[in-house]
């Protein structure tokens, strides 16, 4: 059995229909339990006080917002190279979820920044590249809507996705590249010494896993919608002929 079998829409619909309920239930369980753990059972930070609780919504949302673009990038490259329609539709399906996560990241970031930095917004490299990523998401969705031929739309949006990935990388690594600005380094790291204290780290991991599962569940649901819409259009076109 090959991974590419799932480029077949019928097989994709069958598999996604089976796994979707599991992803949804586990996403809900992990998000609710992780947020309750973080909100009710973790102490205040010695520097940031109670605002540290914003960590449990801000970091997972920003993580998904950035990585959703990388998922779209991979799907777009698969479309450009192998011309699998499901991959182009999966990239299209991920965009609204990426927008939602970027909005959460921007708003919760401002709500965290105001009491800690004394400002809602700063033209800091990380914040600015994240805002540009948000604009790329909007542009990506607009481009899909603007081009009538679906294959041409998929080609153009794939190129836009490749260009926009620069800002996804910058959103993630701006603090490393420039080493300036208000935003702190990553809260999570492979190097245990660099990330947040364990008492905040474990609930954060649970919420992040929940956000990732939610993202996968929503991408599967939206891709199913896109496949069905595409099939409906094809049947209508065939009937007209």
């Amino acid at each position, binding site marked *: 059995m090959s991974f590419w079998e799932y480029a077949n829409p019928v097989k994709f619909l069958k598999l996604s229909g089976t796994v979707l309920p599991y992803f949804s239930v586990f996403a809900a369980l992990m998000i609710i339990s992780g*947020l*309750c753990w973080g*909100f*009710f059972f973790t102490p*205040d930070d010695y520097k940031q*006080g*109670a*605002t540290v*609780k*914003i960590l449990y*919504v*801000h970091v997972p*949302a920003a993580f998904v917002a950035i990585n959703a673009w990388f998922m779209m990038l991979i799907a777009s490259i698969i479309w450009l190279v192998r011309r699998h329609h499901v991959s182009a539709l999966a990239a299209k399906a991920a965009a*609204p*979820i990426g927008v*939602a996560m970027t*909005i*959460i990241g921007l*708003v*919760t970031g401002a*709500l*965290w920044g*105001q*009491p800690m930095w004394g400002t809602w917004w700063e033209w800091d490299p990380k914040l600015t590249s994240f805002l540009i990523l948000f604009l790329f998401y909007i542009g990506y969705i607009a481009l899909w809507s603007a081009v009538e031929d679906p294959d041409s739309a998929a080609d153009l949006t794939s190129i836009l996705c490749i260009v926009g990935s620069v800002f996804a990388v910058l959103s993630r690594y701006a603090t490393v590249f420039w080493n300036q600005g208000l935003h702190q380094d990553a809260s999570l790291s492979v190097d245990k010494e660099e990330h947040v204290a364990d008492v905040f780290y474990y609930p954060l991991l649970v919420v992040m896993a929940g956000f990732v599962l*939610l993202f996968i569940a*929503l991408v599967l*649901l*939206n891709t*199913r*919608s*896109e496949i*069905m*819409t595409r*099939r*409906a259009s094809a*049947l*209508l076109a065939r*009937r007209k002929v």
Partner: protein
Amino acid sequence: MHCLLAERFNMPDLGNYAFHVLSSYGVTTLVIIIVIIFSYIKYTRAKKSLEKIEANLNGK
């Protein structure tokens, strides 16, 4: 049981940051609920539309 739960889930003292913390959780919940509802409505519409077209074609 009820008292035990209420005791465990005591509202933490957020002090001067209550607005910032609660707004963050509120905005996150709201946006996630909107995106779930939006996705679900889109899915049910696409499914119904496809079923209707397939039924029409099979009827012919």
